[in-house]
């Protein structure tokens, strides 16, 4: 019996630490590595040119590495459910392997493929290697529920078994007798397409700031570790103007596509720490970047509505405003706030922005200024941001808009002040918004306040060459704090708080109650702290304050109040 195996690349675009591929090769006579091009991102079709380019570069890199092993990459267009039965037939497949995809859409797709495979008598090999841990085990440890707070997640992690070591890289030795039948017309049928072939306009496209591929990823990893070793400091680096720019040691897009194994990164980081600090147990904070990613994958894996507000059990229902015009201004960097516009410009041009820059623009769009739904922001990031995949993107947006996990909404990033504090000289603005280049540092973050003479001298009149600010930030943030306060007051109404309640809101009644209960998952984190809005919100609406208890009783008559009293403790 000839063993013909197919390895299906989706993420995990690498030959190092690829246990499912390695397993697949063992005992096989032929190997064909395929990439199926349509649909690409499970569950999302909103992809911009930077992300396509990155992907294509990853595929080229894979193809190059496979050539060195006398193999090739097979890029096939179509839907997996259509493509695979055909391939199984044509190639007389006996085995199919792929890396486990924890996202709900991915799981559904893979279940369908597994069914097709079993119908065709094809054995399926799946291994976890996109995440540090088997996420189902983390959930199991938490009593079958995904953890809802990062603290809880960290506590669970500290009780998990050690992270599995990365699998060895695929070499000629590993391949051994396994061969890849390559036809003469392979390049016609299965070559990696170019951007033009996919229908993109590439004239004027700048070179990629973040070149895709496993080779680049591994080089960057070495550089990243070298720099850490040289600095001998594993603390989070202080934010400065330079941090805003793309770094040659940045790794997040490579982790997202799987060009770099998170487990490899984890182990190399651990080794380096032990060497430099002569200390055997690194703190969890060392793996911050990786653990955040892991956290969002864990929270999302069993929630198909994770990327929506409606019907999402972990998302607070907030009455966001529908405003396509305002959204477009934000997405296209035309808000009139240079700090916001520069960030969105960098995002569109390069595909990556610093995490604090993300906080700034996300806050501005949602709870800070525009009061537009985080789902809209998430879609824009999906299109433009190289390292944003479904779970991490949706989770982060919910976090940044105070729609879930994190409710300390008092902290609002000022679109002028925050930028000014980060980059006092304004070089970042000048770099990405050359129209404002000639403004002095004093006015570059709020050019509308500059006297006419200064604007004329800078050859940039606000309102003509650069837009006026689209909102009055003070007014907007004042209103929005009120909104968030109202919403969180409603959340706490089940605890008998709230000084003005007509009746429990229909849409939120049951889901809120469930959510409040599930939020209180650890005795160490009392529910009031998690909701955390006693700051300026509920202090005068209850919590033992006799006078207001009286007035809330006045506000709701005997009947309905009973409902509230019953559900409070």
């Amino acid at each position: 019996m000839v063993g013909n195996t197919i390895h299906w690349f989706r993420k995990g675009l690498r030959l190092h630490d690829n246990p499912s591929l390695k397993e697949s090769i063992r005992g096989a006579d032929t190997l064909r590595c395929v990439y199926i091009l349509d649909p690409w991102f499970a569950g999302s079709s909103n992809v911009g040119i930077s992300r396509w380019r990155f992907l294509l570069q990853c595929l080229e890199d894979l193809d190059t590495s496979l050539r060195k092993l006398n193999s090739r990459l097979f890029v096939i267009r179509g839907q997996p459910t259509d493509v695979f039965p055909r391939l199984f037939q044509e190639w007389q497949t006996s085995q199919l392997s792929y890396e486990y995809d924890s996202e709900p859409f991915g799981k559904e797709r893979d279940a369908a493929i597994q069914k097709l495979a079993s119908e065709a008598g094809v054995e399926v090999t799946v291994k976890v290697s996109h995440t540090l841990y088997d996420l189902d085990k983390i959930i199991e440890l938490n009593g079958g529920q995904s953890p809802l707070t990062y603290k809880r997640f960290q506590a669970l992690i500290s009780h998990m078994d050690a992270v599995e070591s990365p699998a060895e890289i695929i070499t000629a030795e590993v391949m051994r007798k396994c061969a890849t039948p390559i036809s003469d017309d392979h390049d016609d049928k299965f070559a990696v397409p170019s951007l033009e072939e996919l229908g993109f306009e590439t004239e004027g496209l700048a070179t990629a700031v973040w070149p895709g591929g496993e080779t680049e990823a591994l080089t960057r990893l070495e550089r990243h570790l070298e720099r850490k070793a040289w600095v001998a400091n594993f603390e989070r680096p202080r934010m400065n103007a330079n941090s805003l720019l793309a770094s040659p040691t940045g790794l997040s897009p490579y982790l997202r596509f799987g060009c770099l194994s998170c487990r490899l990164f984890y182990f190399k980081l651990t080794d380096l720490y032990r060497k430099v600090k002569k200390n055997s147990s690194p703190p969890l904070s060392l793996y911050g970047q990786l653990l955040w990613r892991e956290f969002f994958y864990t929270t999302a894996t069993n929630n198909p509505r994770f990327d929506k507000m409606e019907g999402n059990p972990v998302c607070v229902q907030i009455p966001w405003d529908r405003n396509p015009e305002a959204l477009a201004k934000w997405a296209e960097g035309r808000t009139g706030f240079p700090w916001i516009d520069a960030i969105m410009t960098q995002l569109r041009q390069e595909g990556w922005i610093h995490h604090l820059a993300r906080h700034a623009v996300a806050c501005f769009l949602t709870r800070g200024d525009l009061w537009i739904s985080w789902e809209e922001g998430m879609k824009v990031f999906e299109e433009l941001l190289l390292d944003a995949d479904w779970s991490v993107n949706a989770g982060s947006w919910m976090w940044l808009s105070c729609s879930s996990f994190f409710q300390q909404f008092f902290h609002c990033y000022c679109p002028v002040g925050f930028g000014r504090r980060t980059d006092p000289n304004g070089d970042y603005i000048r770099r990405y918004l050359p129209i404002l280049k000639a403004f002095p540092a004093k006015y570059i973050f709020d050019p509308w306040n500059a006297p006419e003479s200064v604007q004329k001298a800078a050859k940039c009149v606000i309102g003509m060459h650069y837009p006026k600010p689209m909102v009055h930030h003070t007014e907007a943030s004042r209103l929005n704090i009120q909104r968030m306060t109202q919403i969180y007051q409603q959340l706490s109404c089940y605890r008998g708080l709230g000084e003005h309640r007509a009746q429990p809101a229909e849409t939120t009644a049951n889901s809120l109650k469930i959510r409040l209960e599930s939020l209180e998952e650890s005795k160490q984190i009392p529910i009031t702290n998690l909701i955390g809005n006693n700051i300026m919100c509920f202090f005068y609406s209850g919590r033992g304050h006799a006078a207001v208890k009286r007035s809330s009783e006045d506000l709701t008559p005997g009947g309905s109040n009973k409902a509230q009293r019953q559900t409070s403790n």
Partner: protein
Amino acid sequence: MKRVKGDEDACSSSSEGPTESCKKVRKLQPSKEKHQEEEEETDVDLCEFGFDWALLPQEILLNIFQFLPLLDRAYASQVCRGWNQAFHMPELWRCFEFELNQPASSYLKATHPELIKQIIKRHSNHLQYVSFKVDSSTESAEAACDILSQLVNCSLKTLGLISTARPSFMELPKSHFISALTVVFVNSKSLSSLKIDDTPVDDPSLKVLVANNSDTLRMLKMSSCPHVSPAGILCVADQCHGLRELALNYHLLSDELLLALSSEKHVHLEHLRIDVVSENPGQHFHTIRKSSWDAMLRHSPKFNLVMYFFLYEDEFGPFFREEVPITHLYFGRSVSKDVLGRVGVHCPRLVELVVCANGLRPLDEELIRIAKRCTQLSAIGLGECEVSCSAFVEFVKMCGRRLSQLSIMEEVLIPDHKYNLDEIHWEVSKHLGRVWFPDMMPTW
């Protein structure tokens, strides 16, 4: 909140004999009634009384219906005539929240127009606690006014006008809004709580409010009502001696107002909330005399003074120069070290402090002074600020367990020779008497 399932069968099956219905009752509702006599009775006795769902007393139905969300109640009301009658009992229509949204401007559903019609037709005189939630479209605000104008037979105790996004009430023609609102003011005569922030309410309409409701008014929230003048709000304070809660903007605050609220005839004030908002950079703000605050404090020693500041850094000149009885303080924009220093000196009653942003110089001294002088402080939140770890630990040590709310962004804490970030949470937890971590933001 148990749902009564399977009722439809039990209620509408007149073909079933009483014994069958009884069995179902026993199965479904083991002990819904808490009446002692019935608990002692046997099942057989229940059947002898010919008990069936259709005869469930209205008071009990009312009790059950109160636990149901409106939609479920509406479904239940379609089961039989008796339940339909129960659905329309006045007690169930005391409270209502009208949600007015347009699909073009909101993701949320609106209260069904048919339901609104029904309520106005059958229940407007039952309504007592009403709120309107409108989205950012003028249409929704108009719809709210439309309903308000029809509440002629209402004797409202509570009225809330809430904009959930942009303040759409402000976009209505002022007269249109005022006339709708005045309908309620004139007809209700027993308004106790009124929430009209971000609306174009004006002095004359406040006069109407006062003329009709001065005996009953206890709570008035009217932040950001630009058409009201200090004289207008003074009129309210002068006449409404039962006022316990007031929320307004700083430009309406005056020495006279504070004195009126502290007059002998006036009850103790419980909450005073003031929004200090800057329209344009360099705006000038008037000062309130210390003697006025002292009078307030003498009259209402336990009152909460809540102040939200949305000012530019250089507009704080008139504030915190003398002692002021603030209990809850929120800085929505960046505030200088200097001002925070003054807060430590002049706000002995401070209970909660939130600072959105400060700058890149450590607030060590200022925090420690606050810990020392603000002995009631129990909640603090720091956003974009910097504090050295040692000073922070010192601060927490001085406050001790009274700090029930400590919300510090991780970026705020600067590691120094004594503590790094990993160690600090243990130190702080120790002094707080509970496990504590700084707030984190995702960094991937």
